[in-house]
């Protein structure tokens, strides 16, 4: 369980990036953190694995304060995949890249081999096993980065802007994949601007603005509240826009998902 109590954070340059953040994320929850550029989303998730420590307040992971343990120790529980894969890839082969963290955590040879195979399979990277990560396309590099974190099977998985640079098919696969992780009982946190992606995933949403969390709630509740999403410079999903326009004809307003929209329309037109 992730708990933040009255967390403030300022960068050494003096920029106050987090103010009065209070939140609780239970095990197995699926959360999307959204908000304008510079709202503090990445700063917030860096507090979860202890890369940043609060200037005021407390961050507790399973009851342990992040200031009391090293990042390496927290990382076993909290897998954070950075936005840009180029900030972490350095090995000669994809295989070595994925085993990097496993070696750091001191797994034995056999386990490392097993976990690498598992991760390569999971992200459809088997054919690139011996290929240099620098030779891969942007989307593939992103998957290697993801595999290199999932390999040690952390119970909390945080993805910073996972959909950037992914084509439609990869995005859909990513969505399936995230939902599957969540079904397996992992806590999944995504940081994203992609409102359509979130609308299709239907997670719990935390909306941020200027370092504060301004709303926490279900995707349907938040993403149909135009006033609220505007404040965080997030757009309504396309479907929500359509249903907002159809409100006068007695359509429900809380529809954000394409399939649900199709059902509602079908019922209306057929009935």
């Amino acid at each position: 369980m992730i708990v933040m109590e009255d967390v403030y954070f300022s960068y050494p340059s003096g920029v106050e990036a987090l103010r009065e953040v209070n939140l609780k994320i239970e095990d197995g929850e699926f959360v999307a953190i959204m908000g304008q550029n510079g709202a503090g989303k990445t700063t917030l998730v860096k507090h979860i694995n202890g890369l940043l420590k609060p200037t005021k307040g407390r961050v507790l992971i399973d009851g342990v304060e992040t200031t009391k343990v090293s990042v390496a120790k927290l990382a076993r529980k909290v897998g954070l995949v950075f936005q840009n894969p180029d900030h972490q890839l350095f090995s000669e082969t994809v295989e070595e890249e994925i085993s990097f963290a496993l070696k750091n955590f001191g797994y034995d040879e056999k386990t490392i081999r097993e976990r690498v195979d598992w991760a390569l399979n999971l992200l459809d990277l088997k054919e690139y096993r011996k290929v240099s990560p620098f030779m891969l396309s942007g989307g593939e590099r992103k998957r290697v980065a993801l595999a290199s974190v999932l390999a040690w099977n952390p119970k909390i998985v945080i993805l910073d802007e996972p959909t950037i640079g992914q084509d439609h098919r990869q995005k859909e696969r990513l969505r399936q994949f995230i939902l599957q992780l969540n079904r397996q009982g992992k806590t999944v946190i995504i940081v994203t601007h992609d409102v359509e992606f979130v609308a299709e995933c239907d997670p719990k949403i935390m909306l941020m603005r200027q370092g504060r969390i301004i709303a926490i709630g279900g995707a349907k509740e938040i993403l149909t509240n135009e006033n609220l999403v505007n404040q965080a410079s997030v757009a309504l999903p396309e479907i929500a826009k359509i249903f907002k326009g159809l409100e006068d004809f007695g359509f429900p307003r809380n529809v954000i998902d394409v399939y649900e929209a199709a059902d509602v329309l079908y019922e209306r037109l057929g009935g």
Partner: protein
Amino acid sequence: MSMFDGFKFRSVSSSIHQMDPRAKFVYVCVLFSVTVMFNNLIPLLILFLIQVPLVLMAKVQKEWVRSMKGSAMFAVIIFAMNLLSLYFYSGYETFGSVLERSLAMTLRFIVLIQTFSIFFLTTSPDMLGLALEQSRIPYELCFAFTTAVRFVPVLAEEAQTIMDAQKARGLELEGGNFLKRIRNYIPILIPLIVNAIRRSLELAETMESRAWGANKNRTNLYVLKMERKDVLLILISLLILAVSIYVSMYVQIPSIIQILTS
């Protein structure tokens, strides 16, 4: 990577900031050559101390202290390397003189950092480019130079992100023996270098698509002019150079050990 903080331009208003970059450049060149000229502790100590008032005048003491702290680890490495190699492979008689020589080498590194840090903290990349251009250096070269300088803070920030990303994958930078510590930096240096190369290629492409170099006769909005204090700084620098050359050629520099024991 707080060492790099000492090389980021700080826009403060001080008499040092307002000086002509060319004058400051002469000063840096002189200090650089003089620092490399000596390998005794006393002259290096003097070079270190005479620059402290400059730091205070430029009102950048906070950044300077940070860059000193950041370079502490490298300083320790330099000290240890010198101590070991001098102790085992040189004909120095006493441990005291080996110690003094190692300290001098470490101080030389610190003085170099200090000198360059004063220069870069007080000189904006734009001014630097302007100074180069007005020294009739081809614009292509000036541009390459200012771009390199301008990208230092970008690289520093990127290094921080890369460090975070690798720490998130369980990399522990502290701890372990000396060799392991150096190996620990491989996962940070490789992405940093690869990204820098990629970025430079991209930059070249985007600049060419914006017709860079189409016009041969460039003009500038600002024109640099030497003032009296700039001339004074150049004169002082040349004086330091002359004195140092004289001292290194004709004066037997005593070591601190000698002074203490005599």
